[in-house]
């Protein structure tokens, strides 16, 4: 028994299972999540063009509650809240996606290398991962951004990625550890394939689900961190994002004067994006770990309980589930 028992409570998914597009899309959770995400991506793409007003222009009276001409009301400067939400979607999503792309790439490189190479390399990389897991990253990010001063959104995404990759890396290391001694990997090694080829063509294809969930988790945490940092007044608050909206509403005491229409929309958008991403993640989790799939047990339990996912080879579970 090693220290791994305490820290590495990562559930390792049965590997070696590949899914076709139909298996994935059959999951209701994934479908619902993709629809939600799709709506916001669309908003991000066309938002700035369909905004009824210039989000930074004084277009009406100040602090007007929602009305027909301003469905989400106006701010303390007479700006249209709906236009700000629409224009802010793009930046919020951009930061999340860029942070996730960079962060998940680092996570994959560190996690898979550590798991595959083992030994001293693993010790070192795991130590690095665990250190970044434990240090509270928000104060670290704040410190870096405060030192850098007026930070543009790309730099902010980069900082979020460089400080937040450890969760994905930990999961990928655990998964790599569990498949590096499987027959197909050993066979490739015996055939004399170089390490980079084994990692790219034998190991990586079996980890796409974990990389995908890690990526989505990263997008969400990227958006949340960006929102939190903007809320604290860091970064460039002149370009609209949901965080910038929350910062200005708090700055103008919107919640003390009851201007709920100002700060509710960005938070709800954030929650809906988060829900979409989380639903896809839950769905993928259930595809790779059939034990988690719901609907498998009857309320009366006892004898009626079926344990589909158990000793059955992972490849067959999907089929037996389908029969039900």
């Amino acid at each position, binding site marked *: *028994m*090693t*220290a791994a*028992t*305490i820290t590495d*409570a990562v*559930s390792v998914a049965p590997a070696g299972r590949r899914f076709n597009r139909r298996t994935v899309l059959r999951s209701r*959770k994934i479908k619902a999540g993709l629809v939600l995400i799709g709506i916001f991506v669309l908003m991000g793409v066309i938002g700035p063009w369909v905004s009824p007003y210039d989000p930074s222009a004084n277009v009406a009276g100040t602090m007007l509650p929602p009305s027909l001409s301003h469905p989400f009301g106006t701010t303390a400067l007479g700006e249209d809240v709906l236009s700000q939400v629409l224009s802010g979607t793009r930046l919020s999503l951009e930061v999340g996606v860029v942070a996730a792309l960079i962060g998940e790439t680092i996570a994959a490189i560190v996690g898979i290398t550590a798991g595959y190479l083992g030994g001293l390399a693993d010790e070192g990389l795991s*130590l690095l991962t*665990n*250190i970044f*897991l*434990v*240090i*509270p*990253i*928000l*104060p*670290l990010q*704040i*410190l870096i951004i*405060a*030192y*850098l*001063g007026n930070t543009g959104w790309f730099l902010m995404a980069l900082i979020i990625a460089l400080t937040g990759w450890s969760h994905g890396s*930990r999961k990928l290391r655990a998964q790599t550890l569990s498949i590096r001694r499987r027959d197909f990997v050993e066979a490739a090694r015996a055939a004399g394939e170089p390490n980079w080829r084994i990692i790219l063509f034998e190991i990586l294809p079996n980890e796409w689900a974990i990389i995908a969930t890690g990526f989505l988790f990263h997008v*969400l945490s990227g958006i*949340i961190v960006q*929102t*939190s940092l903007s*809320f*604290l*007044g*860091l970064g460039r608050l002149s370009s609209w994002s949901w965080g910038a909206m*929350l910062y200005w509403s708090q700055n103008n005491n919107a*919640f*003390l004067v*009851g201007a*709920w229409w100002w*700060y509710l929309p960005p*938070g709800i958008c*954030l929650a*809906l994006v*988060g*829900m979409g*991403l*989380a*639903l896809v993640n*839950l769905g993928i*989790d259930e595809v790779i770990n059939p*034990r*988690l799939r*719901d*609907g498998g*047990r*009857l*309320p009366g*339990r*006892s004898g009626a309980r079926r*344990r589909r996912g158990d000793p059955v080879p992972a490849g067959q579970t999907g089929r037996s589930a389908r029969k039900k």
Partner: protein
Amino acid sequence: MRLLLRRLMFYAVTAWVAITINFLLPRLMPGDPISAVVDRFNGQLSPEASQALAAAFGFDSHASLWSQYVTYLGDIFHGEFGLSFTYFPTPVSSVIANSLPWTIALLGVSTVIASVLGTFLGVVAGWRRGTWLDSVLPIGAFLRGIPHFWFGLIFVTVAAVGLGWFPVSGGYDSSLAPSLTPAFLESAVYHSILPAITVIIGSIAAHMLTQRNMMVTTLAEDYVLVAEAKGLSSRRVMIDYAARNAILPAVAGFAIELGLVVSGSLLVEKVFSYPGIGYVLFEAVHNEDFPLLQAILLVTTFAVLTANLLADLAFFVLDPRTRDT
């Protein structure tokens, strides 16, 4: 025992890394931010003060990087973090000492409540999988996507400003001086209810989802099947066989997430102007109070490390497998 030593070593290394990051960051930054800040304050501060400022960073242009580092380590070891700009000339250490107890009390109590409640809900939801209780999944997912501080804004609007049930901001009634009198404690508890609820609602979903999934995974184990086949009551199977084994890994998973929880909760304090580390952090950001920001990073890191150590000790007691070696 070896395991515990290993963990202790890890914590020591992490603490050292955090301190070193803190030392190197201002020196690696483009444009030499320290001199910039010192210069900016030069006009406003007395020469002794700006000297103190430079000393706060262990910044001495005549000394080598290594000797600066050694001095810095020594200062940290003695709890000397320099002077805060925000509360000038108060030492950073006393700013921290005044705010840390508030944060520890608020976060400690609400984390315990959230984990107990979340674990319980997760056990039940995992046990009753396939029923309407599965709706905790999307609900939990929804709650998880929301930053904690946004809940705070809602609660302030509804419960404090709208209904007037709770105070809008602060950590205690400003007519009372901080002391250990019953009146003061009562007011402190009253002021902390809303922030605590915010933290609890913000973090309960994570506990619930992890615990539920761990529970579902454990329910597929053979020993649960055997327990059921023996005809044990389902209550006993649920609590003594499944939940008991599902809780430990779920808690371990949560200990790892603690850094995230702390990060999220710091912002809640800002919403409520609660006099803890989070509020000080906000002030420090606005005043570019680098010594204070650096100290907050170190102190929160140390706090999370301590919490992790406590979790390890609990494991050591609860899980005989960790004692084997």
